[in-house]
């Protein structure tokens, strides 16, 4: 009986099972997770860890436990997607904690949320004066969404009637020295055009380029491997490795 080998095999099983299951569970971002999703993630991870290292029990029951938790998680996801009332019951609802500039103290008490927590969340959003806030909503993931009073909203180009150029997503033309031909084709250009653009910037070969991006306005961003920076600013405050 070779315990190291057994742990290795069980580790591979646990790792890839977890990988598959998390792919099945979906692409919710950490910031979008509700408190329950968070606990679900921790529990699934913990079961996978036991599956790997707890040799006192068979691997299969752990694995089944993992599958059961994921199936239940999927089931709840399905319910919250299809059934709005169920979603409200399972995930909770966003709660208004500041309305028309007034703190809803009863709502705070119900949520077991202290005023100090509210002020901290506001400060993290750069709001130090409560008078600036029109609405604040505590979301189901525990984050605070804030709507400032109209007078405190930042000015946008629209407010000033300014026309601004369109900004979309840039396309990668060279990545790590490799030209991506599909992307060049997708932006209706060709290699000859790219090479001419590189020549203009005194670059003889695409392999010298770390990253080349083309934005929707036709502006080319190029970053070479050799940066030729003479005075590199070190933001570290000690001489060791960053």
């Amino acid at each position, binding site marked *: *009986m*070779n*315990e190291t*080998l*057994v742990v290795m*095999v*069980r580790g591979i*099983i646990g790792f*890839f*099972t977890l990988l*598959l299951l998390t792919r099945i569970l979906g692409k919710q971002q950490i910031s979008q997770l509700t408190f329950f999703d968070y606990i679900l993630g921790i529990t699934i991870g913990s079961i996978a860890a036991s599956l790997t290292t707890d*040799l*006192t*029990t*068979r*691997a*299969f029951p752990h*694995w089944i436990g993992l599958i059961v938790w994921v199936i239940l998680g999927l089931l709840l996801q399905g319910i919250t997607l299809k059934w709005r009332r169920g979603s409200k019951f399972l995930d909770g609802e966003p709660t208004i904690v500041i309305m028309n500039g007034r703190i809803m103290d009863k709502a705070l008490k119900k949520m077991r949320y202290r005023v100090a927590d509210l002020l901290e969340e506001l400060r993290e959003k750069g709001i130090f004066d409560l008078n600036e806030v029109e609405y604040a909503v505590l979301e189901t993931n525990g984050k605070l969404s804030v709507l400032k009073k109209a007078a405190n909203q930042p000015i946008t180009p629209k407010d000033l009637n300014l026309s601004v150029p369109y900004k979309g997503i840039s396309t990668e033309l060279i990545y790590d020295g490799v030209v991506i031909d599909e992307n060049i084709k997708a932006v209706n250009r060709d290699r000859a055009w790219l090479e001419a653009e590189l020549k203009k910037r005194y670059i003889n070969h695409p392999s010298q380029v770390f990253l080349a991006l083309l934005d929707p306005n036709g502006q080319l961003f190029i970053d070479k491997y050799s940066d030729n920076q003479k005075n590199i600013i070190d933001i570290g405050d000690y001489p060791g490795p960053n």
Partner: protein
Amino acid sequence: MAKFLYYCIPMVMIIGFVLIMASSPLLKQPMGKNDNVEKYIKIVNRNIIDEKWTDAAKNQKQLKSAWEKVVRRIQFGAERDEMNDINKNIARLKGYIKANDKADALAELSELKNHWYNIRF
């Protein structure tokens, strides 16, 4: 083809994992030479009942060797405690046979049998 592989690879992986984890009952069955644990349990049992201590000692060694072969195959799915208990049973059995202690040897063998049957799906 890519879509087929996208679904096929995870399925194959899952099936492979289940086979590894749940195959102990199958893998404990005799597959080669001198790895029939159940047969040696029966032989040693008979030897002890008949008080043929020399034969019992010889067959206990065979039982140990058969178990060592089987354990290599079943270690990925079986419980470590169960396997450790069988190791202990075999070691103690050796002592009882040496001491010609029929009652304890039979008790030990009975416990060993119980652990052996517990290696299941």
